[in-house]
């Protein structure tokens, strides 16, 4: 069968590309607007007698941060051990296995801990946020908030943004500690290095800048996860099927945004 590309098909393709591009730009604009509104309500809420409720923020922090501790711990330990295995294997070529701590310390704190933590939070909490807001949208709960004079951004979005902004960096610090510890256990078993010597070497290698590099970008990842989850949740149309579609979209977009932002951040800060 021969497929003939007619001018119509080409035009349709270009139209589609155009539409997707316009939609993408519009969503970035929406995200920026949402973030600006969130900042406005954080600052101006009390003056307008509509403060952000601390209980709602703590509930989000509990959900995003505390409940994610076990899975983040397991993943951080796994990545730490994996880095130790690969590091020792690579350095053995040069007979420099004992220098593996440098690679582990810098890789975990600057790259792997923030990245793995953010991806886990995107899959866990970004999807939950999109699904919750999407369900609220189709059940007219968002409309109900508006007609009660309750701003949905202040009531629903700000707690999620604050929750992610605080808990993703906190989880990253936890991930740093667990990842480095697990790698230390493996290095000790494989090379006969004591944990005290491993910790001492790691502390000597790491600078304040390395740790802040990881924590700083994890804060950006946290905001991205919240904003992308909210935009997708509030865009839901088409009932339960729509909730599923936009939840998946939120996770895919969040992970893509995290990885691209990471690259841009590293490019801007490290060079």
């Amino acid at each position, binding site marked *: 069968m021969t497929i003939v590309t007619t001018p119509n098909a080409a035009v349709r393709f270009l139209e589609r590309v155009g539409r997707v591009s316009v939609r993408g730009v519009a969503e970035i604009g929406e995200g920026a607007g949402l973030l600006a509104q969130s900042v406005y309500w954080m600052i101006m809420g009390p003056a307008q007698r509509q403060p952000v409720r601390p209980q709602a923020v703590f509930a989000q922090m509990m959900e995003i941060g505390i409940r994610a501790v076990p899975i983040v711990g397991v993943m951080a330990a796994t990545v730490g051990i994996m880095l130790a295995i690969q590091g020792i294997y690579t350095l053995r070529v040069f007979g420099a296995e004992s220098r593996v701590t440098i690679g582990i310390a810098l890789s975990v704190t600057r790259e792997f801990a923030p990245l793995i933590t953010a991806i886990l939070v995107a899959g866990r909490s970004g999807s939950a946020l999109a699904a919750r807001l999407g369900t609220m949208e189709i059940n007219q709960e968002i409309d109900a908030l*508006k007609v009660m004079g*309750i701003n949905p951004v202040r009531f629903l979005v700000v707690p999620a943004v604050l929750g992610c902004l605080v808990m993703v960096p906190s989880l990253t610090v936890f991930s740093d500690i667990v990842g480095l510890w697990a790698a230390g256990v493996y290095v000790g078993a494989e090379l006969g290095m004591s944990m005290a010597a491993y910790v001492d070497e790691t502390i000597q290698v790491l600078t304040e800048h390395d740790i802040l590099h990881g924590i700083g970008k994890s804060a950006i990842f946290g905001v991205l996860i919240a904003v992308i989850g909210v935009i997708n949740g509030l865009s839901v149309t088409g009932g339960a099927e729509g909730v599923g579609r936009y939840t998946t979209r939120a996770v895919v977009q969040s992970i893509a945004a995290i990885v691209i932002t990471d690259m841009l951040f590293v490019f801007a800060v490290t060079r």
Partner: protein
Amino acid sequence: MSRSPLPPPRDTVIKVKNLVSHYGPRMILKGLDLEVYQGEIMVIMGGSGSGKSTLLRHMLALETMTSGTISILGVKIDRASPRELAALRKKLGVAFQGGALFSSMNVVQNIMLPLVEHYDLDPKTMAIMARLKLEVVGLAGFEALMPAELSGGMIKRAAFARALVMDPKILFCDEPSAGLDPAVASAIDDLILQLRDALDMTIVVVTHELESAFKIADRIAVLDQGRILFVGTVNELRSHPSERIQNLLNRRPEDDTIDPDDYLRRLTGDHGTGARV
């Protein structure tokens, strides 16, 4: 429940003037005028796609109109500042079709929410106020239940209680008796009448349930294809000579004469004038 006709004139609390609304390229409301008077139950009726839900959403300032004006309690909602709109919304109550109760809160928390968000009251006082409204709607004793544990009729009642908790001047109800069994639907209708009689509340009801509309309406507005076809009392509606209105009242489908050639052209997507193979 028989009632005497309302003595005109009464204050106009809602005034819709020349309202035009689009959904994408499609015109939904085509220059619509409507007035609702203080203390009356205005029922907005119409078939599916007639624009009645869109009209309600415009009255609640949930949609942006293309042109026209809507004035509610003297506030022009298309020109109101966010602060004016927020102040107005405290005077409005809305019972949504599906209830729109927050699934993460129990019944009493749902009802207390507007109080919690707008007033610095003692939680015990707010709980008492919420329980009073639950008494009014006949849902006392169900405070601790979650929305998922309520029946359809109970959800509607809880939604009414939340809509009433701020003692609104105007209550909007979207399909209040839709999807309920006749006994529960009748009880909801009685509740709406009680609210009008006891509190002199203005109530706007959007429904397609004829029986319910005839039971509760002081006046009925019939919408058809984005325009107001009729506004008047139940008796005036029943005796109206318009065929379209009688078709609606007697649940007869519109007699759309179909041209077979045109139908075939629409099916095949052939909009040209040339000969078909």
